[in-house]
């Protein structure tokens, strides 16, 4: 790796001041499993590395009575995977993390780090879209919160301004009648997904009150298939409604052809996965 200046701030304030000073030349070290390999490959040139590991209280996963759950910037993927609360209340987040094959990656890597890489192929980000995640972002000028669907501006480009870092992810309490599901397609179990879909629906008296359908690896960013969602809201969810929604969702994708899959396959599989995910979510909502 090229030489760099190394910092171990002990507060978020200190970290944001460093990030503000050094801007785009600074890399944030959380778990390091994205940053270090890419620095070794020369893909990232960070002249300054800001290590978050010595800032206390960033690893917490905190369940709040009836108001959801929050976890900090250093909450490891492995902690999320082992959390009984998350397994029970946010199963699609558990599923997205659990299917990451490398245990070492899960011990070292963080959820926030995964989200901040900004790749549309993040299964974790896809499930967080469906769960209505909100991100707390700290900068030198103060804090702001943002729903995750506003966080991605373009491929690998987040809304973070100079000096800002994500300090927390908040998930709302799932309302009664919620059903969620997550599915993806991969070449091998350890590979990055060709396409992933996560959905959350809220059913009340047989009518869909709310729907979120998130699709990953089929556009420059993870996105919500809002036209498909609109076909579900206020409706009884019949097989016909599901089929219509899956077709519409497929039309909302902007996939590319790359080494993992073709645009045509991704577009077609969006339809199949959205259908299966909606069926599963509906079943779980009962």
């Amino acid at each position, binding site marked *: 790796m090229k030489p760099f*200046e190394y910092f171990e701030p002990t507060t978020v304030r200190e970290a944001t001041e460093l990030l503000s000073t050094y801007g785009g030349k600074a890399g944030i070290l959380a778990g390091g499993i994205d940053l270090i390999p890419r620095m070794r490959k020369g893909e990232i040139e960070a002249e300054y590395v800001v*290590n978050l590991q010595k800032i206390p209280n960033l690893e917490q996963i905190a369940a709040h009575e009836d108001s959801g759950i929050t976890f900090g910037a250093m909450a490891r993927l492995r902690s999320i995977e082992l959390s009984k609360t998350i397994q029970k209340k946010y199963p699609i987040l558990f599923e997205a993390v659990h299917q990451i*094959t490398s245990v*070492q990656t899960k011990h070292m890597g963080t959820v926030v780090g995964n989200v901040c890489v900004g790749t549309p192929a993040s299964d974790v980000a896809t499930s967080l879209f469906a769960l209505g995640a909100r991100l707390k972002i700290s900068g030198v000028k103060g804090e702001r919160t943002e729903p995750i669907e506003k966080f991605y501006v373009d491929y690998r480009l987040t809304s973070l301004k100079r000096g800002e870092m994500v300090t927390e992810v908040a998930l709302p309490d799932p309302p009664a009648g919620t059903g969620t599901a997550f599915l993806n397609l991969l070449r091998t179990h*350890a590979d990055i997904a060709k396409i992933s879909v996560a959905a959350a629906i809220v059913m009340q008296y047989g009518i869909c009150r709310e729907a979120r359908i998130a699709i990953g690896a089929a556009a420059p960013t993870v996105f919500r298939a809002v036209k498909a969602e609109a076909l579900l809201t206020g409706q009884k969810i019949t097989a016909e409604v599901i089929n219509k929604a899956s077709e519409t969702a497929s039309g909302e994708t902007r996939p590319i052809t790359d080494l993992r899959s073709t645009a045509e396959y991704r577009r077609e599989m969006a339809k199949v996965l959205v259908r299966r995910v909606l069926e599963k979510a509906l079943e779980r909502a009962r």
Partner: protein
Amino acid sequence: MKKEIVNFKINGRPYEVIVSPNMTLYDLLRDLHLTGTKRSCGVGECGSCTVLVDGNPTLACSTLAIAVRDKEILTIEGLSRGAQLHLLQQAFVDGGAIQCGFCTPGMIMMAKALLDENPNPTREEVKEGLGGNLCRCTGYVKIIDAVMVSAEKMRKGDK
């Protein structure tokens, strides 16, 4: 770039080393002639460089040495007691779970972390636990057998 004199605790021994921030834990271990830890892919995808840091399975190639000062680092060398192999190492040897041997140290360190957390794993849990460790030679079956055998011996109190 500032070099620093840093204290490390590796396999129960203290080391005082001059470290540059851009040294990985893997670089550090090799410099100290602890050559048991191997680097295969070097980009955090194969698990060959797995060591334990405060008991947690960690990829040495993707860890900055300077970030793990004052932590308990355990490498493959720390498992054996002189010429006496650790139960896991012996099980790999006895079970024919080693061919070229390059994945073996990382595989054993990961297996140790797995068994420390879950002393009674199912075969499926062992497969899941070793998901981050690639082997090009053995086809994994004997590796999984060796871990299952070790788990049973450990539960019986064998050393």
